[in-house]
Every structure is written in C-alpha cells, then in structure tokens.
C-alpha cells in the first residue's frame, strides 16, 4: 500500500484557522448536548424525562431501559424518580431491545433509549423481528437525530427515518420542540403498537406553544397559513421554517407551515388536501438525508394522490457529513434559517 492510498482524505488534514461565528465568537463542536438555536428562545429542560416521570405516577406498566445513555437521552430523570423501574442494560443495544420485547410480552410498556444511530443501525434486526413483527408496545426513543451533533457520521443519524419507515407496524415520530415531546411521550404511551421517536434532549426550545398547537398522533397540522409557499416539515425543521416564514414575510412572500410530526403513518389526507389547494410551491423540510425521509414520503404520496404541484426538498445530502460546529454544518448543508431562506427565494 503506497502513501497515496493512505491519504484519501488528506485535504481534511491541512492546517486550518480557528473559525468564528457571525458575532465573532469561536465555533466549537456542540457535541452531545446540542442545543438548537436557543439564542433568546424559551427552552424547557428534559421534556421527555419529565413527561415519562409524570406518566409513571399513574402507569405501573411503564419501565425504562437504556444502553448506557440515560444522561444523554434524559432518561436519567426517570431513573432517579423510579430506580426500581429503570434498567441500565449496559453498552449492549441488541439485548436492550430484545429485553424490552420480553418485558412487553409480560405486559409492560418499555421505553428504550439510545442514540438514533445505534438503534437504527446496530439494533435494527432486533427492533424488526422481536418488536415490530410481533407488534409489541415498545417505545424506542432516540437522541441525536439527523444533524444534531458535530461528531461526524458515527453519531449523525441522517438515515434513521429512511431505515425505520421501511419497517412494518412501526410508528415513526419526529417531534419539533419541548411542548410536542411532552405531549407525544404521553400519546405514544397510550398507543398499542411499537414506536420510534426522535428525541431532542437537554434544554429543548419551546416554540409551538405560542401557536396553540396540540400534538395528535398520526395527524399533520397547519401551524401557519400562507398563499405562496407550503412548507411541509417535521422535527426541528418546523421551528426553522417558521423563522423562515417570518423572514420571507418581510419580502412579501407568504408561507404556510404544515407540521408533520408523524412520519409514519403519514397523514396523506391532510398533506394532499393542502397541496391540492394549488398556487403554492410545496417545500418539504426535514433534518434527514434527502433519501427516504419525509420529503420522499410526501412526494410519493402526492403522486399517488394525483396532486401535481411544484415540489422541492430541503434535506441533508445523501452523504456522510462533516464534523464541526452545528451552525456551520447547518449552513453548509442547507438547513439553517439563512440557507432555507436563500433556497426558497431562488426557487420562487
């Protein structure tokens, strides 16, 4: 093996200068406690953990499992409140998922947490055969969805929705903010089947409250009306496109936002009805690879429904993404407010 073959990614090793943000501060990798554009925005601490504790007060069947990531999935809040209902399964995602299946067989409702990459890639067969095939009520709740860490492809679950969407019986959720995570946690506990839910953890922005939003499992809901653009978005991208809509308003562009937290089963009826109103550019927006996520699901659903409208996707590229600071990466890959605003302007 010669030197050339060893230096496939040599360009990454050339000396760099310290990057700075627009306001002059250093941009550092925002690692595992990624807080999303919370500058000046109200946040709520550990909404999933607190919702689960609250639920557990009246639900003896709820148990929690983690594969060495309770602190990083907010399950530590539950572990502290209910130590005898918490299972630290160690760094072993396969047996965590299998054991959750076993507990569900015995009548319990397990919430199993890890990072989205590990559930979707490492434990896939176990979720598929031990849980989904048997339609067991296990709730798999996973942090670091999409591009919410700068650690690189090992931790960036840019493909989890594509992977999980293909699994029969599985309900797939990508909630937006603290309000929604709280409500969705309660809703999925009542749902009789298996669920995969993407999780924002730590101090989670709270934005949907001001719109009077209330989560309904399986339902897409209009957050904002508009005549020129129809955003169809999930996860924190709904937060982003709401900001984009405010910016574009100043330019005379009127944007509607249809929030789709339930990726599967997709609320085709609502999405098709809104798109069919016509006269609007439909723009899907997701924190996920352009392959196999919300955008392609919506595109295919509209085609099947016979709704033919101008259609664009805001999504991450089909690539292994770089490491770095999240604001840099979100700009680079087109999911920041600036980048989405620019894209939409160019498309109009």
């Amino acid at each position, binding site marked *: 093996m010669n030197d050339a073959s060893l230096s496939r990614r040599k360009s990454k090793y050339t000396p760099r200068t310290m990057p700075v943000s627009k306001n002059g501060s250093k941009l550092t990798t925002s690692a595992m406690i990624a807080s999303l554009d919370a500058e000046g925005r109200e946040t709520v601490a550990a909404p999933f953990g607190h919702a689960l504790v609250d639920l557990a007060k009246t639900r003896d069947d709820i*148990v929690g499992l983690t594969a060495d990531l309770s602190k990083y999935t907010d399950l530590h809040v539950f572990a502290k409140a209910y130590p005898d209902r918490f*299972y630290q*399964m*160690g760094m*072993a995602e*396969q*047996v965590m*998922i*299998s*054991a*959750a*299946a*076993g*507990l*569900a*067989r*015995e*009548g*319990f409702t*397990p919430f199993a947490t890890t990072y989205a990459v590990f559930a979707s890639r490492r434990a896939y*067969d*176990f979720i*598929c*055969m*031990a849980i989904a*095939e*048997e339609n067991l009520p296990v709730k798999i709740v996973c942090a670091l969805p999409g591009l919410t860490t700068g650690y690189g492809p090992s931790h960036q679950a840019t493909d989890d929705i594509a992977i999980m969407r293909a699994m029969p019986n599985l309900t797939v959720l990508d909630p937006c903010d603290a309000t929604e995570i709280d409500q969705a946690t309660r809703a999925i506990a009542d749902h009789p089947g298996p669920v995969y839910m993407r999780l924002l953890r730590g101090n989670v922005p709270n934005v949907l409250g001001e719109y009077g939003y209330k989560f309904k499992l399986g339902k897409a809901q209009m957050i904002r009306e508009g005549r020129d653009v129809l955003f169809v978005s999930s996860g924190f991208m709904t937060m982003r496109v709401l900001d984009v809509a405010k910016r574009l308003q100043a330019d005379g562009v009127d944007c509607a936002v249809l929030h789709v937290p339930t990726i599967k089963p997709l609320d085709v009826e609502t999405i098709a009805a809104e798109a069919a109103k016509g006269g609007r550019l439909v723009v899907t927006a997701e924190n996920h690879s352009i392959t196999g996520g919300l955008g392609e699901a919506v595109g295919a659903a509209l085609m099947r429904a016979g709704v033919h409208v101008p259609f664009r996707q805001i999504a991450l590229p089909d690539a292994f993404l770089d490491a770095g600071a999240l604001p840099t990466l979100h700009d680079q890959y087109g999911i920041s407010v600036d980048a989405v605003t620019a894209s939409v302007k160019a498309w109009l």
Partner: protein
Amino acid sequence: MERDTSNVSLERRAYAIRRNALLMGEVQGQGYIGQALGAADLLAVSYFHALNYRADDPEWEGRDRFLLSIGHYAIALYAAMIEAGILPEAEIETYGMDDSRMPMSGMAAYTPGMEITGGSLGHGLGIAVGIALGLKRKNNPAFVYNMMSDGELGEGSTWEAVMSGVQWKLDNLIAIVDFNDQQADGKTTDALAQVPEAGRWEGFGWFAQEIDGNDMDALVAAFDAARAHSEPVPRVIICQTKMCKGVPFLEEREITHFVRVEPEEWARALTILDEDRPNE
C-alpha cells in the same frame, strides 16, 4: 397440577416426538428432520418432566415460558406440542402448507404455544432476559427456557444476553443449547465454538452443565439441577446431541445442516423408528 404426571415414559414421549416430526417431514418432503430427531429427547424432558403448562391454555399466566430461538427447529417443537396436546394431531398433515398454523419457521402469531418469532438467530436469549425481568417484576415464579443452537453461540447478541442475565441475577432463566455441531456451512466447532463450551458460560458466571443430550437420565438430572440450583445466577444446559438420532441410516448419512431424505425413505425411517418403539 400442571406438570405432567402421567405414567408414559419419557422414552415413549421422545419416540412420539420423532414420529410426529417424521410425519411432518413426509408431508413437505423436506424439513429440518436431523435437528428434530436429535432434539427429541431434550424436548421430551422439557415438555413431560420440567415445564409447567396447561395444554388447553397456552397463554396461562403461570406457565413456564419456552422460547424457540431457533425458528427452523419448529418441526421439532410442533412435534412435541402435538404430543403434549397443545396442538391437535390432525394438523400434522398441514405442516408447511398455505394457511397452516405450523409454518416451517416458528412464529408467535401463527401457533398456539409458540412464544416468540425465532429464526433470526441470536434473538431468543435476549428476549428471555426481558421475560425473566418481567416475571420478577410480577413476582411470578415461572421459569423462562430458551432453546437455542450451537450456531447461535457465534452471534454477538447471544453474549450480550449472557452478560445481562448475570448482571440481573436471573435465576429464573434456563438456556438449553442443542449442541449438534452442525451449522449451515459445516461444523460449528470449525467456526466460532472451538473452546470447551461450558467453560465459556461459567466464565461469565452462569451455572453450566454439559451433558449427553440423548441420554434421558442425564437430561432429567440436568433439568432438575438447573431448576434447583440455589445461587442467583442464570443456568445453561449444553446438550451434546446427535443429528438424526433414532434413525440409524440417517445418522450415518454424511451429516449436514439440512438432511436430504429421498421420498421413499420417510416410510423406511418410520418403520425403523416403530420397530424400536419403547413401551408406555
């Protein structure tokens, strides 16, 4: 009283299991008959000596859970469950047919008494860990048995479950390893199971027994010891079995994972089996 108390000998039960399996194999002209014949003795001891169950109520809460991690052994478990009265004998002729309750790979949704969907190997023991945890939460004294193969010892998930069982002190968990030294491509001991098997499990903290899995007395003693063991650790019974046991002309065949049986040989195998039929 749930445990079998009839006077039918375990040898006779094993004979019946082998016979049921051969009849099913004949229906399809194929099947994992080598494994079924080899595991008939340990299944006889499971269903007619060790397990608590109610044949007419496969979901009875007090039952011992018997998981078939190795889905392709379904023919063997159906044969045992037919003998146990959990499945009707009349359904033998439906084995592997469209709409049958007895598909060729074991699945929970199809078959009464089939606790899990096996077949993707290395799953059963982890599910058994969760069931054992769940039983303890409910103060249910039932045991969980996970029947697995030597080939599954190559799956990393098996060892995650092995460690987890010790971590949670699962004294209600009994793994049964059918060690016939055959997997799809050849001998298991030529792949990932070269070291003395019991030692591996003991190293992780399990109460391990390694026995001749076709010796009825040894099986009974091992199951009894596994249940009675006083330490708070999970238990494993490694059963060294012989593929095709009980039908000499098949035993002598060059053994492979999937034993080929010619159409006329099913009847010959049944005849040979019947010639040595044990007494009740």
